């Protein structure tokens, strides 16, 4: 008996030792890794391929994929030099010259997931594009962009001899066709794009000669290169499905346009293909992801469209992309995206190694599972933290007017600051980012050219319950009810604030908001979390019914081309800082509500930046972030994390893979790493 009873004690002793050992080992491991990596083993050094602009380094002779060479031999395709033209777009691969062949397998979630293909496979086909840091604008499909007339005129030089994927030349006519017959056709484009305007005044596109396009604006438009580089309406064929893009294959699209084909003819075509109108037919035909016949400029082109179970893309034989050795890109023959009916399946397939490269739809919460199966799935996990300050931000609706008491507090800077001080960001980072994010304000990463300085990351953005309580007391919110919640100053009970969140996103806004609700109890604020569906969120922000709104500010590291999470800029937003300010801003003060002085200052600086040279613009950008951080119009929670498309799963034998890449919609990540240079090592 005694024997039996003693056993547990022995076990206890043993396990005590084990615990001490394990805990000790854990601590040592944590410390060692932290020291060695600075932060985290999965986050590497930012790197990427480069566009070669030095004329001396441009290859003179070209090589092509074997199957294309066969076609050339059979006389079915012109020789490769002819297909590429005189001015190839030369890309220096990240690590090495690759080999031709193979298939790249990935997944997509349905016809709404068209960004997926644009990001991986379009090249990217922007006229200008960012270098791998996402900071500098470089020539891309266009050979160059020349500023004239103090920023009012821009000359875009096209590549001579460059061709559409059907072999027809790509010239200034394609721009003029788009501008005159597509963009200016009221049926196709009911509202002109803001990107083709400066200070609300529209510009024009003209043909200077076959390979030169002229953009003319009524006022200086210094931001124009960034607009062509970003994911904007003028950037490439991506937005063709809504008649945008800045150019279109005139020779092909004319057959669907009433001006050229005749109204009766296009109506008949629409009817034959079961479309409701010629407009729908035209848009469907101009859709990069849906129409395999559409001539394109991208590295791969759609073969089976996105509205089928497999979205397949194959190399464009007329691709203008080449590597430094003169090999026509892409290296990989074919991209096959298979339809996955839901996100768990897409993640599980990545975990099982059924995808060769995947970052879209990968869930940060599954990181341990990804890592656990690295060997089994023969892949490696990388993290690509974003450059923007908020994977989660909370917007105060400064225009909320349904409840004057709440409106008053939202417009009190110290109230907003106190609430921001009440957020325990470390807890949230540990729970939802597995510690991989950076807690702090809304300002972008320190290396961003518009970052106002490291102190602004912490400004009003660290946990300080004591100070927050003092500030709230001082504001006149000192009275509390029995449960410890602050009472409204107008005597109408408890001060209740609502936050609107969206479910089913990359970031678990609802769950994080629930955590913040618990944290705000300590500063006596009663937060009500309301998860809504996307359409409703939109309706409520537009109708000025939202109080607090949770979202991210991805893209805001390019605050001039992507301003909607910096200040109230778009009415159609899932979270808004003030819909009336949006109206005021876009109507030049005729409608809406005049912003408070500092917000107004911020907006004016933003507007001014479009018409000034870059150096001045950078200062304006810094000023804007300073105001944003000081005034806390938006609470930054955790940012610069890999939550949004930043978990990357890549097969071990895929080459030219960066250890870290710029992660942003503007960089069309992984487009920024030029997937055309990815290849199979064996």
């Amino acid at each position, binding site marked *: 008996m005694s024997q039996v009873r003693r056993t547990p004690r022995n076990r206890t002793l043993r396990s005590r030792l084990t615990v001490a050992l394990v805990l000790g080992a854990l601590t040592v491991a944590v410390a060692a890794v932290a020291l060695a990596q600075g932060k985290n083993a999965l986050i590497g050094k930012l790197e990427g391929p480069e566009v070669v602009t030095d004329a001396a380094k441009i290859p003179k002779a070209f090589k092509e994929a074997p199957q294309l060479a066969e076609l050339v031999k059979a006389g079915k395709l012109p020789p490769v030099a002819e297909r590429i033209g005189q001015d190839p777009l030369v890309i220096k691969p990240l690590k090495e010259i690759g080999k031709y062949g193979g298939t790249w397998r990935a997944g997509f979630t349905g016809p709404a997931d068209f960004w997926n293909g644009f990001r991986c496979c379009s090249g990217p086909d922007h006229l200008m594009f960012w270098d791998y840091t996402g900071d500098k604008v470089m020539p891309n499909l266009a050979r160059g962009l020349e500023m004239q007339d103090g920023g009012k005129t821009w000359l875009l030089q096209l590549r001579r001899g460059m061709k559409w994927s059907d072999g027809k030349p790509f010239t200034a006519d394609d721009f003029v066709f788009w501008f005159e017959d597509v963009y200016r056709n009221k049926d196709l484009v*009911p509202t002109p794009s803001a990107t083709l305007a400066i200070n609300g005044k529209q510009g024009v596109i003209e043909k200077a000669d076959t390979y030169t396009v002229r953009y003319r604006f009524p006022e200086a438009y210094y931001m124009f290169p960034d607009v062509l580089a970003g994911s904007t309406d003028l950037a490439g064929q991506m937005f063709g499905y809504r008649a945008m893009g800045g150019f279109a294959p005139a020779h092909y699209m004319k057959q669907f346009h009433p001006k050229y084909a005749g109204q009766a003819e296009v109506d008949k075509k629409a009817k034959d293909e079961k479309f409701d109108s010629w407009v729908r037919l035209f848009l469907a035909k101009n859709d990069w992801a849906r129409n395999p016949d559409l001539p394109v400029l991208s590295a791969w082109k759609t073969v*089976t469209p996105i509205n089928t*179970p497999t979205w397949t893309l194959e190399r464009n034989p007329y691709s203008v992309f080449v590597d430094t050795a003169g090999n026509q890109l892409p290296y990989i023959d074919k991209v096959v995206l298979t339809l996955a009916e*839901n996100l768990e399946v897409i993640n599980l*397939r990545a975990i099982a190694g059924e995808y060769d490269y995947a970052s879209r739809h990968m869930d940060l919460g599954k990181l341990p599972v990804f890592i656990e199966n690295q060997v089994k799935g023969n892949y490696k996990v990388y993290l690509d933290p974003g450059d923007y300050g908020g994977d989660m931000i909370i917007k105060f609706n400064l225009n909320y007017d349904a409840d004057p008491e709440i409106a008053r507090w939202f417009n009190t800077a110290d109230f907003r600051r106190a609430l921001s001080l009440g957020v325990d960001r470390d807890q949230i980072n540990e729970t939802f980012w597995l510690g991989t994010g950076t807690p702090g304000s809304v300002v972008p990463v320190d290396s961003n050219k518009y970052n106002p300085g490291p102190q602004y990351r912490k400004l009003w953005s660290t946990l300080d319950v004591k100070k927050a309580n003092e500030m709230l007391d001082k504001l006149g919110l000192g009275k509390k009810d029995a449960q410890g919640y602050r009472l409204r100053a107008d005597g109408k009970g408890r001060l209740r604030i609502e936050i609107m969140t969206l479910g089913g996103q990359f970031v678990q806004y609802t769950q994080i908001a629930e955590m913040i609700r618990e944290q705000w109890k300590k500063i006596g604020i009663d937060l009500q979390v309301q998860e809504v569906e996307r359409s409703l969120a939109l309706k409520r922000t537009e109708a000025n019914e939202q109080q607090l709104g949770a979202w991210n500010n991805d893209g805001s590291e390019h605050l001039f081309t*992507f301003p909607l999470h910096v200040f109230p800029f778009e009415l159609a937003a899932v979270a808004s800082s003030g819909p009336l300010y949006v109206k005021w801003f876009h109507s030049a003060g005729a409608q809406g509500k005049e912003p408070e002085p500092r917000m107004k200052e911020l907006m004016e600086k933003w507007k001014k930046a479009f018409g000034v040279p870059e150096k001045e613009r950078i200062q304006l950008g810094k000023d804007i972030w300073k105001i944003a951080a000081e005034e806390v119009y938006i609470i930054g929670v955790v940012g610069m994390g890999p939550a949004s498309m930043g978990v990357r799963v890549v097969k071990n034998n895929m080459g030219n893979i960066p250890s870290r890449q710029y992660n942003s919609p503007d960089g069309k990540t992984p487009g920024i790493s030029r997937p055309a240079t990815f290849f199979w090592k064996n």
Partner: protein
Amino acid sequence: MLAYIGRRVLLAIFTVWAISVLSFVIIQLPPGDYVTSYIAQMASSGSVVSEEEAQALRLQYGLGQPIYVQYAKWMRQVLVGNFGMSMEWRRPVTDVIGERLWLTIAVSVAALLLTWVLALPIGIYSAVRQYSAGDYLATFIGFIGLAVPNFLLALVILYLGFILFNAHIGGLFSPEFQDAAWSGARAWDLLKHLPIPALILGLAGTAQQIRIMRANLLDELRKPYVVTARSKGLSEVRVILRYPVRVALNPFASTIGYTLPYIVSGSIIVSLVLGLPTVGPLLLKALIAQDMFLAGTIVLMLGVMTVIGTLVSDILLVWVDPRIRLEET
């Protein structure tokens, strides 16, 4: 008999019509329309759709008109076999549903077969040995399928399949057969992928079938002819299998008509988790995106299947068992 069939067919047509109206209304119920959800989808990816563009879209899709006009327009098309264009997929609805319909039926039939294989013996056993330990155990097993939340079960099986057997994740085909033309190899590949979804779906329906079988058989077992047979010294197995089971099978078999559509509808959730290319996930997405014609067509289709199934089984039953005919007419 003919009069009865005629009456039932007329009623079925009426029911189908009512379903078409109801399904159209259900899809219209949520606030907003396809354009609203499209704008929202654009907004959350940072793109903007202006008010004018939205208006133009509504005009193109005919969404501005009152519901009854849209319904009439749709019905006119449906009657000539054109189910309209899917707004989200921008393809004719029939193309989008296409192969998925047959795969759905394949999965459902497999599930149904499995249900029977399980339910028949369990049902017979638990009727014959009512209230015995075996009865409890058998029904317990039969009911587990009903009780386990099948979405969770599906996920667990999916994961275990990968961890233990390195199985391909979800779907009904291996990647190489995904887009292949139909062939013996592809059919075999499909067959290999069927057992897991069939098991999960089939288990869920087993309880109901056990109940029906057990109740039917219990009714039969008390009939005088069974007592007679027994008293004549027939072996117990023969007594039971010879007549009562056969008679009890009649109403049981008649459930086939509506069980199939029921499984199809029940398969939505499991298909979603397992990533099966069936109509289920399609319907869910269509409803969320408010893709009217696509969702409407699927609901209508499932409804029609149920009605026809019920009709066929009722007629069969009457044909088999004249007593029912007397009762009904």
